[in-house]
């Protein structure tokens, strides 16, 4: 626009009363003011999402990883550390002697046997979820692809969020396969996805019946 008065008014260099008087004789400023008022009003009314399903889980997951790495430091008197170090040394010496004295067969047993069993069990449960999800996805895919209602868009957004969560968990597990904390989140994500797909299919079946 060519008139400088609107700029001066917007920058706070011209009082509102003076600008009002100016507007009575300046069509350009009047129009700009009306359009700006409309833009501001409509811009405020642009709707934004109010929830981010799964976002807190992602934040907690990463914050939880930090906490595994950074342990809080406790300020204890030096004497306590000295006593603790002596105890560790004595216990270590005792355990070392016991280990040297035990039969050879026993010492060959894998030490992480329990952890391996638990991991195998968790992986079996995960495989069940993956198989169930695969089946549900096969049924839901045409519904999601064809649907363009707000509800479908919400389902699609939710599934994308869950998929992102699953991918993040899988990336962490590629580095640290036995991380129980991340395994728990991954299972929760699988569960969440199964429930969401089931809800979507139920919704579609109900709509079909109504129609």
């Amino acid at each position, binding site marked *: *626009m060519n008139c400088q008065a609107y*700029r001066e008014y*917007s*920058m*706070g260099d011209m009082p509102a009363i003076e600008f009002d008087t100016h507007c009575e004789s300046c069509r350009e400023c009047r129009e*700009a003011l*009306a*359009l*700006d008022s*409309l*833009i*501001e009003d*409509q*811009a*405020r*009314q*642009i*709707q*934004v*999402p*109010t*929830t*981010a399903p799964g*976002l*807190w889980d*992602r*934040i*907690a997951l*990463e*914050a*939880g990883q*930090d*906490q595994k790495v950074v342990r*809080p430091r406790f300020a204890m008197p030096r004497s306590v550390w000295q006593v603790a170090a002596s105890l560790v040394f004595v216990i270590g010496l005792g355990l070392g002697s016991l280990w040297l004295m035990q039969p050879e067969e026993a010492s060959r047993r894998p030490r992480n046997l329990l952890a391996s069993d638990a991991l195998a069990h968790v992986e079996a449960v995960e495989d069940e979820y993956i198989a169930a999800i695969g089946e549900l996805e096969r049924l839901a895919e045409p519904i999601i692809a064809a649907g363009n209602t*707000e509800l479908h*868009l919400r389902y*699609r*957004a939710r599934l*994308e*969020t869950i998929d*992102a969560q699953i991918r993040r968990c899988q990336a962490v597990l590629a580095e640290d396969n036995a991380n129980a904390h991340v395994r728990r989140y991954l299972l929760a994500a699988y569960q969440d996805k199964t429930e969401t797909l089931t809800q979507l299919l139920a919704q579609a079946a109900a709509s079909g019946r109504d129609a």
Partner: protein
Amino acid sequence: MPLANETALIQRCQRGDLAAFEQIYRHHEQRFLAIAWRMLDTRDEAEDALQDAMLKAFRSMGKFRADSSLSTWLHRIVCNTCYDRLRRRKAATLVDLDEVAEPLTDDDAEMRVHLQQAIAGLPPQLKACFTLHIQEGFKQREVADMLGIQEGTVKANVFHAKGKLRAALNERLKGWT
């Protein structure tokens, strides 16, 4: 509105209590998500930015001092994180119609989608000032503080942003008035 037990929650967060931080996050989630989404235009990027911001906040909670309110401090982190992402972008993002939260039910809604597209195309600093001052209702002084710029610069940026939006939507808007 501040949390009722904010001081206790801050102290717990400073000891690394994630459950306490979750309460703070839940209290602000809706507003922060709105800011991030308005500044970054897509849900994925808004969520990523909010995640980054919340992790920064949780990790720096030990440095938080009560000389400003927790809400102001968190808002500053969220706005700065989004603004950094906005500046790093190589090109403006086009608003994906699938991501528009509003169904296109009438002319007003359609106009808002065009307006949203035009806002997405604004240069980063103009967009940040317009979004925070006009859409999110922060005072110009607060916006200046959050973005680390002068209050006069905020006024000028808002003025230029409105000028660009007027130019982008002139014909449509005229039909509207």
